[in-house]
């Protein structure tokens, strides 16, 4: 029997004394919008046109959101991620932009990919900028609204079911109010060679413009697919993206899901990716977060069959007053599954990072192998990281390890590079890039790696 539980460091690591008076961490409840205000602001949406099952689910989600309310500083899951600034925005549904974007305007966000692409602008599907596969092929890729209109059976079967009813309140709001998104289905046994790109652009110039985006990805048994999901802004306005992606992996299916969030530094980005895995399936999640004033990434998976696995890979690069939060939940509900988590953060300025990694090993989940690592590089004296592993183990024959580090630039290494003629800023950039390289190198798409390396090189050139 092997039951090893190694703790590299103390369970909670706070790099520095808490930053002075981070908004929302203490004091009275936020004075912004209440949940009732938000429900009113987003109205009834498409209540008339939606199929009955969806109306029902939307109704349930509204009721749940109203019951749960917004999290406060007292809520353990949100302790270090105050949402008060979001609720002080005049939240309202983003409008369909009057000016259509051109192919040239979106080219910088295309990641050099050719092939299947679905483009959404302020949450609205943009057919003329998208290229969809022919219907009836191995890959089905359509907008969610089109799929709803066509009564795609996957929707009723899975939508909202993967995320479940216990998901965070923003996921409930998403279920209640999502306008559009993508439905991707890989047929059983088929390998989809080309990556599918879901591109979400925000153009709204008004503060508080909100897009609720919903995606459903269904990988049939023994199928394989790669999905790139990217978010960016074309305005500087403090807009709000609330996105939920549900992922269903059939037996022995393999999915590589890469999500890149590079929205403007005033934006609020709340995101959930929920996966459900059948026997022998495997998915990789890459979560790259460089944008937004506040970005929360909830990444969850549940093993529903044996011998399944996941690799959760993440990188957050934040500076100024940005906050990046990753909350992962791996539910080892079945025996003989493997999960590996690697999250690296680079923080500059007054930025804050949050990592919470929950690993749940249920009583019957013997021979579980779970590994979790969170490493942080602080480039300034004011950056703060809150990192917490959360292991709940009810089986006895398991291997679970976790480790977290928070450190600063290795000045010995900086000096070594400089002593060979490399300038100070260049040396720092080399070391930041090196710190992130493990995570970047796990991404299979070459164009994504190149873009990230460029970003790493450029981003910390001029410290704010």
């Amino acid at each position, binding site marked *: 029997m092997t039951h090893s539980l190694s703790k590299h460091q103390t369970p909670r690591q706070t790099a520095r004394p808490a930053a002075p008076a981070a908004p929302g961490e203490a004091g009275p409840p936020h004075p912004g919008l209440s949940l009732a205000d938000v429900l009113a602001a987003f109205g009834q949406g498409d209540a008339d046109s939606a199929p009955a099952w969806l109306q029902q689910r939307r109704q349930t989600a509204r009721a749940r959101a109203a019951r749960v309310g917004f999290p406060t500083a007292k809520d353990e899951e949100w302790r270090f991620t105050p949402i008060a600034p979001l609720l002080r925005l005049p939240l309202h549904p983003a409008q369909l932009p009057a000016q259509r974007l051109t192919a040239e305007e979106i080219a910088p966000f295309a990641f050099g990919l050719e092939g299947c692409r679905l483009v959404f602008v302020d949450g609205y599907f943009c057919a003329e900028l998208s290229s969809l596969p022919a219907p009836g092929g191995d890959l089905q890729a359509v907008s969610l609204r089109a799929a709803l209109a066509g009564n795609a059976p996957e929707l009723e079967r899975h939508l909202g079911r993967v995320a479940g009813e216990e998901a965070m309140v923003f996921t409930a709001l998403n279920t209640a109010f999502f306008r559009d998104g993508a439905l991707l289905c890989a047929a059983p046994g088929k390998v989809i060679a080309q990556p599918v790109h879901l591109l979400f652009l925000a153009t709204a110039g008004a503060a508080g413009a909100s897009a609720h985006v919903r995606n459903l990805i269904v990988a049939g048994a023994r199928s394989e697919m790669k999905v790139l999901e990217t978010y960016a802004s074309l305005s500087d306005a403090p807009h709000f993206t609330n996105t939920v992606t549900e992922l269903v992996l059939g037996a022995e299916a393999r999915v590589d899901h890469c999500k890149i969030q590079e929205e403007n530094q005033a934006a609020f980005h709340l995101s959930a990716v929920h996966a459900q895995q059948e026997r022998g399936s495997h998915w990789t999640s890459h979560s790259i977060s460089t944008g937004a004033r506040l970005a929360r990434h909830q990444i969850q998976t549940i093993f529903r069959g044996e011998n399944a696995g996941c690799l959760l890979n993440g990188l957050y690069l934040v500076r100024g007053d940005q906050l990046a939060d990753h909350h992962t939940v791996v539910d080892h509900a079945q025996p003989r599954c493997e999960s590996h988590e690697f999250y690296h953060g680079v923080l500059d300025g007054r930025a804050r990072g949050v990592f919470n990694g929950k690993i749940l090993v249920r009583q019957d989940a013997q021979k579980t192998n779970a590994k979790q690592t969170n490493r942080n590089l602080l480039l300034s004296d004011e950056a703060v990281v809150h990192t917490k592993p959360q292991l709940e183990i009810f089986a006895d024959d398991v291997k679970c390890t976790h480790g977290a580090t928070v450190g600063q630039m290795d000045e010995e290494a900086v000096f070594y590079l400089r*002593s*060979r003629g*490399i300038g100070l800023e260049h040396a720092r950039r*080399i*070391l930041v890039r*090196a710190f992130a390289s493990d995570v970047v190198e796990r991404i299979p798409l070459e164009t994504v790696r190149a873009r990230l390396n460029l970003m790493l090189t450029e981003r910390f050139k001029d410290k704010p």
Partner: protein
Amino acid sequence: MELLDIRNLSARVEGRTILKNLSLSLKAGEVHAIMGPNGSGKSTLAQVLAGRAEYEVTSGSVLFQGADLLAMKPEERARAGVFLAFQYPVEIPGVNSTYFLRAALNECRKARGLAELAPIEFLKLVKEKSKILQLDPALLNRPVNEGFSGGEKKRNEIFQMAVLEPTLAILDETDSGLDIDALKAVAAGVNKLRRPDNAALVITHYQRLLNYIVPDFVHVLVDGRIVRSGGKELAFTLEERGYDWISEPTAAPAGANP
């Protein structure tokens, strides 16, 4: 003109004065050895010359080819032709050795008005220089010094020196931790790089290295001062008699060259 001219240099670290009015000068084509007991200030001298910020210069001057070395940043010193072979080379995970060295070489070339080397030309150069050091080329595909043995790290330092072709090489205890084969390889590398227009400052605790890198001058550093200077035979005397017999400074410690 002297290649390196150190005058009355005093330096301290963490409030403790380590170098005390040290003077020393080197001409092009010369190899000088600095010997001394532990804690005498040998490595401090190397670090001060390379520009490490933790060491504070409290008095004195250092001219390198007539320019004020102490006013230069570490990278500027390297680009000007000063190279420090570290006593403890730093492991840098995630930074590929070849990438690092090409970046360094191109910075140095740029500063000297030369064009950057294309990857192909650079690899040719690397191949040629790694032969001199009998360095396993596979090491160069690894992150800088990561997982290198002690001997490999020291060879890698001299290999970098071979690629960067400095005017002044400072070897800080390059012999420490080396077995005799590695020592010979490192010394042979250094000797092959000797030219009439460059110079080396070899810092060592033991005479052993000086059997292979034969110095023109030997200086004895005790308590932050050069207390005796002489030819290569001084090293043998030190080996035989230890450092204790040197109690009195020679008549003119400031004029380090005999």
